[in-house]
Every structure is written in C-alpha cells, then in structure tokens.
C-alpha cells in the first residue's frame, strides 16, 4: 500500500513535468508565424531595414541554429529531452547567453525574498489564527486580525505600489527598487547585507501584510475543528495549564494542514513573485520573465515558465511524500 502510494505520486509528478514541457512546446507553436519571423517583424516595426537575399540566408541559418527546420515530432522529442536535462536553450535577446544561466542568476534573489517573507507571514498568521479560535484569547486579537483577513484579498503588488509611493517617494525612507544600490558590487559583508535588507524591506512587507490574513484564516478554521476534539476536553479535565493546552495540544495538531499549505506556498512563491518583482524592479525570476515577455524572448519565457511549474511540482511532491511521516493516519 505504502509503495503503491509512492509510485502513484512519482508517476503523477512526471506526468506534470512532461505535461508542462509539452504545453510549453505546443502553445507558442499554435500562434501564427515562428519565433524568427516574430523577431524580424519586431525589427521591421522598429524601422530596421530588412529584406533581400541576405535576410533569407540569415533566417535559414537561425532556423537551423534553433532546430526549427526539423519536422515537428523531431523538434518535440528534442525539446523534451533537452528540457528534462535542464538544457533550456539560448536566450534570443541575450544571445549567446543560455536561459538556465540567467535563471540561476535570478533564482537566489527570488528565493531569498519570497521564502523569507512567506515564512514570516506563515508564523505570524498561524499564531494569530490559532488565537482567534481560542476562547480565552485577549479580545484585541479578534479586533485587529480581521483587518488583515480583509487585506489578504488585496493583490500584494497593488499594496506594494502604494507602500512604494509612501515610503520611498514621499518619505524617502527606503529605496525605490532593485535588490541593492546601483554601483555596489555584490559581496559578502555587513554593508552589502544591510543594503540588501533595506531594499528587500518594502517588497517583503507588501507580501507579509497581504498574506498574514490568509494563514490566519486557514489556521482559525482548523483550530475550531481541533478545539472540538475529545483529547482537548481530556487535557482540560486533567487540569493542564492553558498555555500547554494551547501550544502542545491544539496548535500542534492544527498546524498539520497548515504545513501542507506552507510547502505548496513555498513552491508557488516563484510564480507569485512575478508581479512583486516587476513593481520593485527586483532582479529575480519574475523580473526576468517580464523582460523576456516584453522582448518576445520565447526561449526565456519557456524556460522561466518551466522552472516555475517545476518548483511547484517538486514542492507538492515533497509534501505528499513527507505527509505520511507527519501524520500516520494518511497511510491507511
């Protein structure tokens, strides 16, 4: 049974990955024209003089370079094997740079900013949510947490714009964008670290403020269910201290479904980041994707998209594999 579960999960994972790669292959090809033609069109629209024999030769050379002269099934198989080997091809606008090189450069910024802010809001949100369901919690909790729940309905990048305007433009307390001051060279010392933190503060704040409510809402829901359980009544009947019941009995059990959501949220962190990075000019994956879209850099778009889907698929897989260890009831 256990083995069957693992195998089923692994198969599903590979189906998702191959499906994602396939979609990446099909969707751009459904559009009329081809990438090279699109680049030419773009050049013409910008007023570059094209045409003549030289153009045909260049087009043919580029088609061969990107393998577009092969039959579709060959292109597909080649694309699939390359993608699964994480060979994502060349960026069209930064040729001859490879897509995966650009991805690797952007990834640490995205992961750093988003993983951190997700963890902060998870911790705060879960705690406040648990308090909300707790009958002996201070009354103030029930007054200010709902405010965050309403705030969770607001897209973080819209709040980000407002925060940016207030703190960076009007009050000039924090930088307007970027991950570190222009002109500084990334290195590992205290000054640079402080600079990075100063730059990360606003994007992180906009994410935390808009997601605390989400975690609180989820936690409250589970907590209400847990509070009705018999073992809680027993714990109270035994005369255990309140604090111990709250943390050790109620919150601990209610956290389980939250952890699942956290792992998935950490996986979706990268795809959720696209807009926050655009707003704050943060040099992560989302910013890369935005620029690739604006310059019709198909291979870059495909590469980033594949990377986003892969991170989600991996985190969901990890959750599903770890879950039986956390909660033995699943195995049955």
């Amino acid at each position, binding site marked *: 049974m256990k083995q069957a579960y693992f195998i089923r999960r692994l198969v599903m994972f590979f189906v*998702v990955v191959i499906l994602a790669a396939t979609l990446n292959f099909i969707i751009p090809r*459904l559009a009329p024209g081809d990438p090279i033609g699109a680049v030419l069109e773009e050049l013409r629209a910008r007023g570059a003089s094209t045409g003549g024999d030289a153009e045909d030769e260049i087009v043919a050379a580029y088609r061969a370079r990107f393998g577009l002269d092969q039959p579709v099934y060959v292109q597909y198989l080649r694309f699939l094997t390359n993608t699964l080997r994480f060979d994502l091809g060349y960026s069209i606008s930064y040729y001859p740079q490879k897509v995966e090189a650009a991805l690797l450069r952007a990834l640490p910024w995205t992961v750093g900013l988003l993983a951190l802010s997700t963890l902060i809001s998870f911790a705060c949100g879960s705690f406040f949510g648990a308090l909300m369901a707790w009958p002996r919690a201070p009354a103030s909790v029930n007054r200010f947490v709902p405010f965050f729940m309403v705030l969770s309905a607001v897209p973080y990048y*819209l709040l980000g714009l407002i925060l940016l305007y207030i703190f960076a433009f009007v009050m000039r307390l924090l930088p307007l964008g970027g991950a570190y001051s222009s002109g500084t060279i990334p290195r590992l010392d205290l000054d640079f670290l402080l600079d990075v933190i100063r730059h990360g503060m606003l994007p992180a704040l906009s994410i935390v403020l808009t997601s605390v409510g989400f975690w609180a809402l989820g936690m409250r829901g589970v907590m209400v269910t847990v509070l009705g359980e018999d073992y809680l009544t027993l714990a109270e009947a035994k005369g255990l201290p309140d604090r111990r019941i709250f943390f050790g009995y109620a919150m601990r059990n209610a956290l389980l479904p939250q952890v699942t959501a956290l792992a998935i949220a950490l996986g979706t962190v990268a795809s959720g980041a*696209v807009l926050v990075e655009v707003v704050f000019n943060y040099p992560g994956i989302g910013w890369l994707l935005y620029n690739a879209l604006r310059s*019709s850099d198909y291979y870059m778009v495909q590469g980033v998209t594949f990377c986003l889907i892969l991170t989600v698929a991996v985190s969901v897989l990890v959750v599903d594999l770890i879950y039986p260890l956390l909660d033995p009831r699943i195995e049955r």
Partner: protein
Amino acid sequence: METNRLRRLSAALPLLLRRLRAGAAYIARTPKLLLGLILLGALLALALLGPSFVDVNDAKSISVGTNKPPSAEYPLGTTSGGRDVLAVIVVGTPQTLKMGVLAGFIGVALGVSLGLIAGYYGGRIDMAISTATDTVLTIPPLAILLVVAASVRTMSVENMALIIALLSWMFPARTIRAQVLSLREQPYVHMARLAGLSDIRIIFEEIMPNILPLAAASFVGATSGAILAGIGLEVLGMGPQRTPTLGMTIYWAQLYSALIRGLWWWWLPPILVLIVLFVGLFLVSAAMDEFVNPRLRRTG
C-alpha cells in the same frame, strides 16, 4: 384552468415574498455580506451610471491634455498618454467585472459538471477526473496564462475570460465532487434510483439542487480568482489591447514611471477601485462560505 393557475400563483406569491424577506433579513444580520454587497453595488453603479456623467471618449489616448493633476474639469486628472483617468475608470471597471464573471461562470460550469460526473459515477471515471484535477492544480496558472497570452497576438476581454476559465475549474470540481460523494448515499437518492429514474434525472433533479449553494459560493471564489489572474496579466502588459482596462492603466503608469514623477492620480484610482472590488468579493465569498459551512459562523 386559468383561474387554477392564477390561484396557484397567488398562493406561491406570499411564499416567495417570505423567502425574499428572509433573505433580506439574513443579509441585514450578516454585516460581512451587507458590506460586501454595498461595495460591489457601488462599483456596478459606477459602471452603469458613469457613462451618463463622464465622456467615455476621453478614455482613448490623446483625447485630453497630458499629465494634468485632478481639477474641476478632470476630477481624477489625466495620464501621459492623454487619457482622462475618471473616464478610464468608468470604461475599465465594467470590462474587469465582465471578464471576471464570464470566466468565473464558465469555470464553475465546467467544474460543477466534472465534479458531478466524478462524484456520481465514481470508479474509473472518478479516478480519471480526480487525477486530471490534481495534476492541473499543481500548475501555476499565471505561468501558463503568460505563455498563452504571449502567443495570442490580439487579446480581447472575451478571449482572456475563456483562457482564464480553462484554468479555474479545478477548485469547484474538487469541492463539488466531495459533496456529491456524500449526497450519493442519501436515502432520497437511493429512492430515486429504486424508482427507476435515469442517471441524468437523478443528477439534475435530486443532487443538483442540493449543491447549488456550494456552486454559488464557488462561483464568487472563481470570479475573484479570475479577476486576480486577469489583472495580473494586464499589469504585465499582456491584457486586451483595444479596451483601456484597469490593469492596463497600471501597466502604462509603471512603464512611464508615473510613481517617481509624482503622478499619483494616474495609478492610485485604478488601484483603489481594484481594492474595493477584491475586498467586496472577499467579504461576499466569506459570508457565503459561512452560509454553506455553518461551523465557521461561531467565531469571528
């Protein structure tokens, strides 16, 4: 014959009135729902009544002077592209609502159908649908949307709604399936089956009415999700090109650095309208969740 029908109608009327009054009383008793409906109603009024007060032609580019701060003539100022911001809001808000409702409706219709089929028939059909649902659920919608949007040359509001709808059926499908699984074993469904009713009739006449509240709750959620996805696309500059939408306005404001040029009237109004919209949908959706799942009602 006629009088008979009339009598039946007149007997049904008080019942209908009582239902309506009970509904109104429920709304009045639930501040969340009331506030949410007021916010959404205000936006709807803005979209419906706005065109009779504001010249919608000023929403087109180069129709008014550029970069003007709010004044009596242009209450919300003008953009660098020469659009009247108030006119843009009046034109853009209904487009956003239309896109969301359309996508939400298609998505929920798709999800409810799949959920009904999977839950009712069970077995291999259920296995296939559930696996497909779980698989698509793990794909981040924005990623797929961006690739699709980048490939589609001309995006219209309807196109966008359709594309987004294709990625918003999973949650409704899951919720409905779970509900149908338990409804399927209810005595009245067994009765219907023993009475020889066809599967189609059991699904539509016995089960469907019982999942309508849940479907309605999913619809609000799906609409909100669709608008969120749509606005995301628009802010990235991948939205409909012909109509000035709210997200598109934010995109242009970003592109022309309206923020650091101090042109707050360009980007702030669309953001505020969107915040009102999302908060309204959130409140209505939360109230509906409480209606469907009374256990949530006790707290908060």
